[in-house]
């Protein structure tokens, strides 16, 4: 038991009295430890606080005692009790001259209050005084407090003293002074801007600890403005080199690594300075290479440095040789047994694939392992990686995984995040609308309340608009499958509100469209929805409107529909609802049921949710009515702007009745019976069929339309309103054809265009063309050889990625087809869509071609590991002669780090030139490597991929029990 140990330990402590704590404090801790409940603990502490309050205010308490009282106060506050009465005592104690009391005072003050607190003003003076103290410990305590308590206004008061301390003989003081200045800089950059040169000077401090501390403020400064510190690149590189070569005193070693934290900081700085700067990066390659070679993967801190190196490399101007080293280390991380290292590996991989997506291929299996890992952190990191590497070719697998995981977790914060990522990826890369709808269904079902409502509107919009263009058949198939799935889903309990809204809307709009489900069945379902959610007005409103639409469609085709009893009772209930919106909808349904077939047809045209509603802004159909009124002697309408003087609400209203102008009407929404009903009906609600699919812009349209439809009574108003409502929400931007494709650029736009005929010709003619195209592009790539741009590399990556994903998708398609027993051609249509697109963009690569390509090359390229050759090249060139030659003398002459800067020019140039030659050789090499990789993959590729696909399909982890694939991928 903990308590028992507590007591034993306490006896020992009590006898020795080690740290000056009294019996009282020990008793307090003990009794808190033994408290049976939170309430009891609270009681004990309140009693203690009362006691402390009395004692602290008592002037006769001895000073030694005061320290302990204050510590007890800090303790009570740490346990979550209000000890604000003691803050003043803490401040008081900082004035004390005894060092222990002063330090305790500073400690308590720093813990209790921050720089905005009123009491700080009382401390500033003390800090000022203490900064000038002879006792360096007092100075240290003051600096620590200053870094915590000095706010923007107080900085000028202490700044001169702190700057003076930069020259203090004790390195501990210098170090803390640098850090305090850094803190001031964070608080208020302008207050210390004139001191930047001091930081630069401290970089040459004799004490490496001070130099290391200086890196912190410099890092912040450089992050702010890299360009003005480019001159320091060489210095930083040299410092890093010296540190890595163990020139620092061994006291800076940590677990046999020389000053690892300084190395890490330097690497971070170099990453910022070298970002996008080829010249600056050129200085760094050698030292980075050195660190990699010396890298110690056995210790934690060694790996920390290696990881930081990878980060640095992924940030600076890419160099293929060093990239290979980084990739190699990353794969070591990923293959490690330690979860920490795997985590770092995944993170590193995420960085490297930004530069060269190829790297990911090799690690597919490790990544999948991490995805299956029980460690949540690792899993999330992996999803982050997948999110980064999602393309149209692998989006299905990735999003499926994400959703699976999303369902399994309970953490709302992360659930919302991953849901929104799913939505984002699906919107960006969806291979087919069908898939998109299914995916969205899943997301809504499990995290519907956590995603933005706009997403729901986008989904409705997609279902309404479908593929667009010529292929009406596919559209209606899409819809009826959506209806089927929704009817099935409705059986499940606890659906989120936004999902129910979608379901209701879709059922209302398309529930009876294919004739599979009788109207009464769907109406019954919708009534169930409305009944099951008596408190959710939005869902009920959607449900009632959906029912109304179904009735309207039934009446329009001349079928007789019975009023189901449950619907009747629902309408009765809603007519008396507190929500006016629901009331109106209920009355509208009743009114509509009484109308003639033709009227109903024009009020609620079937499948017209996407049609544009023509708005006659001038209300020309009222002209005759206006004329009539004028003839009878009514005053002509004067627009608001031309009216003089005060326009009282009263006459405003009378004008309004005669004529409507866009902005006056909105105040009058609900009244105004219009005598001109019949004309209005025919004109507004029959919308022009238009093929214009460009989203109708925003607000103004909505308002206008709103005003138009409001004054007209019931049924009519509804049609306008319903149409607009939907349009408004969906309009925002996302699902229009262009925005759908915008992020994935040409590929998906062409895919949707070709979707229709994709199924017919993608296997035949398309293939031939594409293979030719690929042939040529491949040739050109070879010619360019040396300058392999990032763009090309990415294309090359999608070579392998796409074929893999295709195999994958086949698995998926099969599964879907089996599960849903859909007509197969439909699935084909859906899945053929991305194919032609791929052929266009990446003029590449149906699997058989890849094989053809692979064979000849594989015979020519030796399957030797390119790395090992590289190592051989590297060894003599960069490592020994050049570097050791130049740096050795400087080390012997003086320990000062900066002294080496004088010879660094030489170093830089020589290493640069060796670098160039090495790079050249290497490029050839890498080319070889690339081709041989292709060859490796080509070999029995399909076999392996199929296995992989089936493994994923079954949901089995392809870990060790998939040796075939493994061998294949890794040679």
């Amino acid at each position, binding site marked *: 038991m903990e308590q028992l140990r507590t007591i034993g330990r306490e006896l020992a402590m009590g006898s020795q009295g080690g740290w000056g704590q009294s019996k009282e404090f020990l008793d307090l801790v003990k009794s808190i430890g033994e408290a049976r409940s939170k309430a009891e603990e609270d009681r004990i502490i309140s009693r203690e606080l009362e006691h402390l309050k009395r004692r602290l205010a008592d002037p006769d308490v001895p000073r030694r005692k005061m320290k302990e009282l204050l510590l007890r106060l800090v303790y009570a506050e740490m346990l979550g009790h209000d000890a604000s009465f003691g803050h003043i005592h803490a401040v008081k104690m900082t004035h004390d001259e005894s060092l222990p009391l002063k330090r305790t005072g500073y400690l308590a003050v720093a813990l209790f209050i921050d720089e905005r607190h009123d009491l700080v003003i009382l401390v500033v003076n003390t800090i000022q005084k203490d900064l000038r103290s002879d006792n360096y410990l007092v100075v240290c305590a003051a600096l620590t407090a200053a870094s915590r308590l000095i706010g923007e206004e107080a900085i000028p008061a202490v700044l001169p003293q702190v700057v003076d301390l930069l020259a203090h003989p004790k390195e501990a003081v210098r170090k803390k002074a640098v850090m305090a200045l850094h803190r001031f800089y964070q608080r208020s950059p302008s207050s210390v801007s004139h001191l930047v040169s001091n930081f630069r000077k401290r970089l040459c401090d004799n004490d490496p600890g001070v130099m290391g501390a200086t890196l912190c403020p410099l890092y912040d400064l450089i992050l702010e403005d890299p360009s003005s510190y480019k001159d320091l690149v060489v210095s930083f590189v040299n410092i890093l080199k010296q540190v890595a070569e163990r020139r620092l005193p061994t*006291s800076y070693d*940590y677990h046999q690594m020389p000053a690892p934290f300084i190395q890490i900081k330097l690497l971070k700085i170099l990453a910022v300075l070298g970002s996008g700067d080829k010249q600056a990066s050129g200085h760094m390659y050698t030292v980075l290479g050195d660190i990699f070679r010396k890298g110690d993967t056995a210790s934690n801190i060694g790996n920390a440095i290696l990881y930081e190196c990878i980060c640095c490399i992924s940030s600076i101007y890419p160099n293929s040789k060093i990239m290979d080293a980084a990739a190699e280390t990353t794969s070591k991380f990923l293959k490690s047994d330690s979860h920490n290292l795997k985590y770092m590996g995944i993170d590193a991989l995420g960085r490297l694939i930004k530069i060269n997506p190829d790297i990911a291929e090799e690690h597919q299996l490790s990544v999948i392992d991490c995805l299956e890992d029980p460690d949540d952190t690792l899993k999330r990191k992996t999803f982050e990686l997948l999110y980064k590497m999602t393309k149209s070719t692998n989006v299905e697998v990735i999003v499926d995984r994400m959703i699976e995981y999303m369902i399994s977790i309970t953490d709302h914060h992360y659930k919302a995040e991953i849901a929104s990522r799913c939505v984002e990826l699906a919107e960006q890369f969806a291979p087919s609308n069908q898939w998109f709808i299914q995916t969205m269904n899943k997301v809504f079902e499990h995290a519907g309340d956590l995603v933005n409502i706009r997403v729901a509107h986008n989904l409705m919009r997609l279902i309404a608009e479908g593929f667009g263009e010529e292929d009406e058949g596919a559209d209606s198939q899409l819809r009826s499958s959506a209806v089927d799935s929704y009817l099935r889903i409705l059986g499940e309990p606890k659906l989120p509100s936004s999902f129910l809204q979608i379901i209701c809307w879709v059922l209302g709009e398309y529930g009876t469209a294919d004739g599979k489900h009788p109207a009464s069945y769907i109406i019954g379902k919708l009534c169930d929805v409305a009944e099951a959610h008596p408190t959710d007005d939005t869902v009920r409103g959607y449900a009632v409107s959906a029912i109304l639409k179904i009735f309207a469609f039934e009446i329009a085709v001349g079928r007789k529909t019975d009023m189901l009893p449950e619907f009747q009772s629902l309408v009765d209930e809603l007519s008396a609802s507190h929500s006016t919106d629901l009331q109106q909808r209920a009355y509208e349904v009743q009114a509509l049921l009484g109308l003639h077939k033709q009227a109903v047809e024009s009020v609620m045209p079937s499948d017209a949710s996407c049609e544009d509603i023509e708005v006659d802004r001038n209300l020309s159909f009222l002209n005759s009515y206006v004329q009539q009124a004028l003839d009878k002697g009514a005053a002509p309408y004067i627009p608001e702007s031309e009216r003089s003087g005060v326009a009282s609400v009263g006459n405003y209203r009378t004008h309004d009745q005669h004529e409507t102008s866009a902005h006056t009407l909105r105040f009058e929404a609900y009244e105004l019976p219009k005598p001109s009903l019949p004309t209005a009906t025919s004109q507004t609600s029959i919308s022009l069929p238009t093929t214009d699919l460009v989203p109708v812009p925003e607000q103004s349209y909505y308002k206008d339309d709103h005003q138009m439809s409001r004054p007209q009574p019931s049924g009519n108003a509804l049609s306008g309103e319903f149409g607009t409502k939907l349009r408004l929400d969906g309009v925002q931007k996302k699902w229009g054809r262009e925005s759908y494709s915008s992020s994935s650029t040409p590929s998906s736009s062409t895919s949707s265009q070709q979707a229709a005929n994709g199924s017919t010709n993608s296997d035949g003619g398309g293939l031939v063309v594409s293979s030719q195209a690929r042939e040529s592009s491949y040739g050109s790539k070879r010619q360019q050889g040396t300058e392999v741009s990032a763009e090309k590399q990415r294309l090359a990556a999608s070579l392998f990625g796409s074929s893999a994903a295709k195999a994958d998708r086949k698995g998926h398609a099969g599964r879907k087809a089996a599960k849903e027993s859909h007509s197969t051609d439909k699935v084909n249509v859906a899945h053929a869509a991305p194919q032609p697109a791929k052929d266009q963009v990446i003029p590449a690569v149906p699997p058989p071609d890849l094989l053809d390509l692979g064979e000849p090359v594989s015979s020519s390229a030796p399957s030797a590991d390119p790395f090992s050759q590289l190592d051989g090249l590297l060894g003599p060139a960069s490592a020994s002669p050049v570097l050791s030659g130049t740096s050795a003398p400087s080390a012997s002459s003086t320990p000062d780090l900066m002294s080496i800067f004088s010879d660094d020019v030489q170093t830089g140039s020589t290493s640069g030139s060796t670098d160039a030659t090495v790079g050249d050789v290497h490029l050839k090499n890498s080319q070889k490597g690339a081709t041989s990789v292709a060859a490796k993959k080509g070999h029995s590729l399909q076999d392996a991929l199929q296995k992989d696909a089936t493994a994923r399909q079954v949901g089995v982890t392809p870990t060790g029990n998939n040796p075939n694939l493994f061998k294949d991928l890794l040679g």
Partner: protein
Amino acid sequence: MIQAVMVISTQGKPRLLKFYNFQPPEKHQELVRGVFQLLSARPENVSNFVEADAIFGPGAKLVYKHLATLYFVFIFDSSENELAMLDLVQVFVETLDRCFKNVCELDIVFNFNKLHTILDEMILGGQVIETSSEQIVKSVEEIARLEKQSSTASIIPKSISDRFSR
């Protein structure tokens, strides 16, 4: 930068709290509870890193070490290296061990002010300033020695405390 250092017992009791971004004392318990729930839910033999943006805001990460009855937790932002932070926890624990000779939870409970002193030698204003536990122990011992000296040597005029007492 490092945002906070926490030592929490496996029962969820805070043993040491140090925030480098000021947090009002009222919020401390909530943060401790959040961290404790997060950590106590984690199984053995998983990584020592947790993303803590739900508790500490976007980008916050957390490294912890579970030793005996205590969680040692460092919270930091994206400008720090996770593995390095893990080693910093190690440095901290090693230092404690040197200072207390086989450190246990009770040492920490009773001497939390010394823990603060140690931390102040390691971290200042959220930045790491010293990572050699030997060095840290040295300066902490120096401080203890000087404190003892000054408390015995200096005779403090009573006037100072009189001035401030009401």
